[in-house]
């Protein structure tokens, strides 16, 4: 009993610390195992983050880089020789519609980002088209005059219409820009919208985009601007009516104003002035 007691006591007094020691060892081993698992988890985690970072940087970098390197000219460019009147007249090219032999020519100096031009383009221009151009009474010519100081997308918009002209969709695109003026005008970058409109009017998107993201037609638009300055165009839209050797600038940019100017020119011609 005593032995048993001592034995038990011995067993208990010696065994308990051993058991406790084994417990500590097990606990430390578990901790080390968890730490190893934790380290393994962290390695996997860093790998996953690395893959996400590489894919993300690649995708965003490609998107931004490919578009940044194809810089779209959105400001007037220096065109040599425009000080010479003959060169200026040769370089500045309005886009025409209607009979070249029509007795009258209606000239617009316009800016695609100007609300007044948008209103003229969507309300008066269809009347000009229907009642004057299609009847052979007048030819209509549009000259770009982007007011780049106040309209940051205007020069690019003018170039965009010229890119559309390359695909024989100038007038469709011209109307499309005016129709959606309130939308693209407020965007930070209008390039995406311009490409979308090109596809909407039936142009091939890639060809249009590559034209837009270049400096193509920047010289023509710049020359048109210079012509406008030479003619002292004060604002946009500026509408002029030419016929019988006379040129009149409209004060009232309405269809009625155009009819009145044409009548005045005819009357002056009849009177021999």
């Amino acid at each position, binding site marked *: 009993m005593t032995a048993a007691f001592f034995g038990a006591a011995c067993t208990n007094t010696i065994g308990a610390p051993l058991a406790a020691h084994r417990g500590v060892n097990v606990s430390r081993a578990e901790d080390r195992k968890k730490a190893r698992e934790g380290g393994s988890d962290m390695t996997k985690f860093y790998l996953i983050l690395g893959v996400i970072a590489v894919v993300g940087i690649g995708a*965003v970098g490609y998107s931004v880089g490919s578009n940044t390197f194809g810089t779209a000219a959105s400001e007037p460019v220096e065109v040599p020789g425009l000080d010479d009147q003959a060169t200026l007249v040769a370089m500045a090219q309005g886009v025409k519609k209607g009979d070249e032999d029509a007795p009258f020519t209606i000239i617009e100096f316009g800016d695609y980002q100007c609300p007044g031009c948008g209103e003229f383009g969507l309300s008066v221009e269809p009347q000009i088209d229907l009642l004057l151009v299609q009847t052979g009474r007048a030819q209509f010519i549009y000259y770009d005059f982007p007011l780049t100081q106040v309209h940051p997308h205007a020069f690019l918009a003018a170039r965009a219409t010229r890119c559309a002209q390359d695909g024989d969709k100038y007038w469709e695109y011209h109307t499309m820009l005016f129709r959606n003026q309130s939308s693209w005008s407020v965007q930070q970058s209008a390039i995406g*919208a311009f490409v979308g409109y090109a596809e909407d009017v039936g142009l091939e998107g890639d060809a249009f985009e590559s034209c837009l993201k270049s400096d193509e037609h920047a010289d023509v638009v710049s020359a048109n601007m210079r012509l406008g300055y030479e003619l002292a165009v004060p604002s946009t839209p500026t509408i002029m009516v030419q016929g019988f050797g006379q040129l009149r600038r409209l004060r009232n940019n309405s269809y009625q104003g155009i009819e009145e100017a044409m009548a005045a020119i005819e009357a002056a011609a009849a009177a021999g002035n």
Partner: protein
Amino acid sequence: MGSAASATPPMNRMVIAALALVGIFVALYLFAHNLGLGGPMVCGVGDCAAVQSSIYAKVGPVPVSAIGLVGYIALLVLSFMGIQPGRRDSRAIGGLLLAGAFGGTVFSAYLTYLEAAVIHAWCQYCVISAILITLIFFAALAEVPRLRGNRS
């Protein structure tokens, strides 16, 4: 318990970090376009141009994409800090993650409502972002037991 728990990094914070990193690139892509750096936006589904050109694309002068970018960066930094040894049981980080994820989810829900009911157009990147922040919020819910129970 504390030391045993901190031996392994909290899985939910690792998930939040990974999702936030994806969100950073989505927001960065939109922000680059807002700055005019991205050219035409690739938008396979929906009408990104309509959404991005709407008045709701900005909060005052700040593009929504910039707000998203800052939010995702904050979530990434917090979750990354929260998986480092010594901070794995941090209730402060847990609380901030939960609050940030909740705020982001509410803001994103508002933007989704605007797309559906006001603008009537969808931007796929906004939808992706909404899904990401919702998943982040669910992952952040795992912080609740940590905030409630682990007071040692």
